[in-house]
């Protein structure tokens, strides 16, 4: 044995990246199909994408039992159960988004969009990567993958409102990416590394000025992505302008992805600075819940109302995160699961009501809905009650969890602000229920039946109810997933 190379190369273990590889692979397959088939069939696109998602899900499940290194590819990607759980959640949301989108384009009369399914897969690959990113550079890469795909998805229909939304999203998103990148640079300056494990070790007792700056810049970047106030400005316009299934998909998935990454950054990389970031998270949470809840009251459009409510929900998740360590992680992850179910469900129901395209999304269009579309009205009521945090829905248990985590960490005032804000929020959710059930429809609209959409929405509806009554179903899983390895 002679001439052994002395250059040390990292050991390459690609298994923990299999979900992303499948997603990207099938996205490319979808693009090739679109390019080379004379007339592409939407159903084929849907099938390709769903198979990709399913394979990614299967490999994610397999990774639950991963017993290799905690991080692979030279510490760039974490292979822990937290990443697995977040990925599975994202993949379910992606599948729902694909199904809803398929029906949306069939009904809206827009020309078949061959790009839709591949773009969703690309965006999802970025999201699944960011929740597993153990290196800030990888996190940034993943952030860009998901953001760029979402900008295009937002403007996909080419409607005026969609174009405007995409432009706005792109400009502000690019801006926030810059903050994020600066933050990484500062972190590197403070510690000499961008990997979150070594970062955590280096921050143990070193000079902290630069690290605090890094933290602040990263917080701004994440603030944009999770749409926490005061970095929420883009949210209402984008959620309103984007095609409804895209809104359903991104409102849930982006939040899961960005919070997944944020949890890793706060509770691993910057855990030594918990005393410094907790007040920041506190303030972001308080401002978000109050602004989101109050501004939602004034909205006349359901999508905008739900957008503001998503800002408030970002605040509730941040409320849980003020508790450092596993208490905070557990409560926020549960909230993310519940939020994903109810928000996909709510936007999906909006789609069900509008019938085709972006029609009938004003709140006044919901007047007397219980008569014209009883199923849509019932679904909307369930999701709205959950968003308002009223038992026996997932939203209630989720709120109890985050408030209890915050109080356990000593932030009872934040919990009080949050609970009072949810009362204000309940007002506008309830207003919609009032319109649907207590008033007669103004005009009789031909409500095209959409049995498929209804069937798809059964999944988030079941999740919303089941997690409200038997939260124990996933609490054990979350418990095991709330240990971050590095």
């Amino acid at each position, binding site marked *: 044995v002679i001439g052994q190379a002395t250059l040390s190369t990292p050991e390459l273990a690609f298994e923990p990246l299999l979900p992303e590889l499948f997603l990207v692979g099938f996205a490319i397959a979808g693009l090739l199909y679109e390019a080379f088939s004379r007339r592409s069939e939407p159903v084929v696109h849907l099938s390709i994408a769903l198979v990709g998602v399913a394979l990614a899900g299967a490999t994610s499940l397999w990774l639950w039992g991963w017993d290799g290194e905690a991080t692979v590819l030279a510490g760039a990607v974490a292979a822990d159960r937290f990443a697995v759980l977040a990925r599975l959640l994202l993949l379910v949301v992606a599948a729902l988004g694909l199904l809803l989108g398929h029906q949306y384009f069939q009904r809206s009369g827009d020309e078949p969009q061959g790009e839709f399914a591949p773009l969703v897969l690309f965006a999802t690959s970025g999201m699944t990567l960011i929740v597993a990113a153990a290196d800030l550079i990888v996190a940034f890469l993943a952030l860009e993958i998901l953001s760029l795909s979402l900008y295009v998805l937002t403007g996909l229909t080419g409607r005026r409102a969609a174009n405007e939304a995409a432009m706005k999203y792109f400009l502000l998103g690019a801006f926030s990416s810059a903050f994020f990148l600066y933050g990484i640079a500062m972190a590197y300056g403070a510690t000499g590394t961008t990997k979150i494990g070594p970062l955590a070790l280096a921050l143990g007792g070193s000079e902290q000025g630069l690290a605090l700056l890094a933290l602040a810049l990263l917080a701004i970047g994440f603030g944009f992505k999770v749409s926490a106030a005061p970095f929420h400005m883009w949210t209402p316009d984008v959620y309103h302008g984007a095609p409804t299934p895209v809104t359903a998909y991104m409102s849930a998935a982006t939040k899961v992805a960005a919070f997944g990454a944020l949890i890793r950054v706060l509770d691993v990389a910057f855990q030594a600075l918990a005393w410094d970031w907790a007040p920041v998270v506190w303030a972001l949470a308080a401002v978000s819940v109050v602004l989101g809840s109050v501004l939602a009251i004034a909205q006349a459009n359901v999508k905008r109302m739900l957008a503001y409510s998503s800002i408030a929900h970002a605040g509730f998740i941040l409320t849980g995160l003020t508790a450092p360590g596993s208490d905070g992680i557990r409560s926020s992850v549960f909230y993310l699961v519940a939020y994903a179910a109810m928000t996909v469900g709510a936007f999906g129901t909006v789609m069900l009501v509008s019938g085709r395209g972006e029609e009938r999304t004003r709140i006044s269009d919901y007047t007397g809905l219980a008569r014209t579309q009883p199923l849509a009205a019932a679904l909307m009521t369930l999701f709205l009650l959950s968003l308002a945090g009223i038992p026996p829905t997932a939203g209630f248990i989720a709120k109890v969890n985050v408030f209890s985590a915050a109080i356990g960490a000593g932030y009872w005032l934040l919990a009080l602000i949050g609970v009072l804000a949810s009362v204000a929020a309940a007002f506008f959710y309830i207003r919609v229920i009032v319109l649907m059930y207590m008033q007669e429809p103004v005009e009789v609209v031909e409500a095209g039946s959409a049995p498929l959409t209804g069937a798809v929405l059964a999944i988030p509806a079941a999740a919303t109810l089941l997690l409200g009554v038997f939260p124990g179903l996933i*609490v054990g899983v979350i418990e095991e997933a709330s240990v971050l390895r590095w």
Partner: protein
Amino acid sequence: VNRLLTLTTFLPLLGALMVLAGGRGLKDEGARWVALGASLATFIVSLVVLGRFDPAAEQPFQMVELARWVESIGLSYAVGVDGVSIWMVLLTTFLFPVSILASWTIVKDVRRFMAAMLVLETAVIGTFLALDLLLFFLFFEALLVPMYLLIGGWGGRRRVYAAVKFFLFTMAGSAFLLVAILFLYAQQPDGERLFGYGAMIDAAAGLPVATARWLFLAFFVAFAVKVPLVPLHTWLPDAHTEAPTAGSVLLAGVLLKVGTYGLIRFNLMLFPEASRYFATFVGILAVIGIIYGGVNALIQTDIKRLVAYSSVSHLGFVVLGLFAFTQQGVTGGVMQMVNHGLATGALFLLVGMVYERTHTRELDAMGGLSSVMPWLMGAFLFTAFASAGLPGLNGFVGEFLVIVGTFAVNSWFGALAATGVVLAAIYLLWSYQRMAFGPVREEHRLLPDVSVREVAVLAPVLVLLLVFGVAPSLLADRIEPATSAVIAHVDPEQETTDVGQAALAASAAEGLSPP
């Protein structure tokens, strides 16, 4: 295994699911009968609970069921009855079939209406039986939605306004309750935190005095909105007036009791020191409520609003009795809870029946009705006597005990509260006079008297008004062990006294004054 309480709680929900599952195939008539059947079955089960209840039992709660629900956060499904909650449950299970039968005339969305009623019944029974604070809160919040839908969906002209007001007031109150519950929860050592009643009492006992007083206030606000105590009562006249008859009956008969029940179950038991500290303050609010409610009832021209304000006054008695910490006061308060539920429930039923005939609630637009429908007006007079506290009918004993029990500790409160009884006699009889006597209006001349169905609605309630008036010990025997346990906990200095031993009760005066 003993699953009697679970059966009582969820039987109505099962009925609601049946009504909904019936779909359009289930005709309106069918939905009514299913709902009535489910609520009657629940009532029968609750009678079995009453039969099995042992007033002399050692343990504080009976027929306890305990199951872990969400282990990771310490939420358990724990239910049980004591001498207070058993009457609340029976009051509930009794008034629901009555209200459902009284709602036979509702024709709009019958299936949805009946389902909402039955869901409401489950939620209310759950709040009375829960022995886990988060479980209690869950039911407490859950009952808002069906009640809200009942008011907003089937109410009067300003129903949406009233429903939203009701919802927001109650939910704002419960916001403080949730934070306080979670705060208590966080006081327990990490890893073994529980929401269970006993664990929470222990956690509360270890609190610093000032903290406990703040938490007392947080609980108090939530329940005071529900009771309601002045100045948190403004939702009540609107909600009562706009609600459909069944909604008013249940609101007055059952839902307000959730508030007073919460005070006795949680405020007094979790925060004994703070309860003593705030007793005078609460007493003042209660007395203001008694007089304010009475005076307001006096000047109303809308009969439904009048009865609503009388509730404010009567519930003031309950709270005054509870915070006297004497055997008479607390027992009287609990008895008054039951009796007010029956008497005011009956009043709302009667007002509803009159309205269905005359289509007006304005007293000035009525008159001479006793010559047109003597039976209905007779029932009204009988109920008004009961509500005003005429001896021999059920209202008397509770109010009397409250006043005696309060006199023993604070003669001012006792004297002022007694004026409430006088006011009640005036506004009830005066309103009766305006309705029943005088010239008959032309359009009212041919109105029918009570129908068979209405007799079936009213008779059971009126019989109970008499029974509990003649034999108050039926109530008191079961209530007393529970209330003396509460008093012993709040005010350990005080010897538990028997009803009537005013001399001993006087010693409580020292215990009541704030530290």
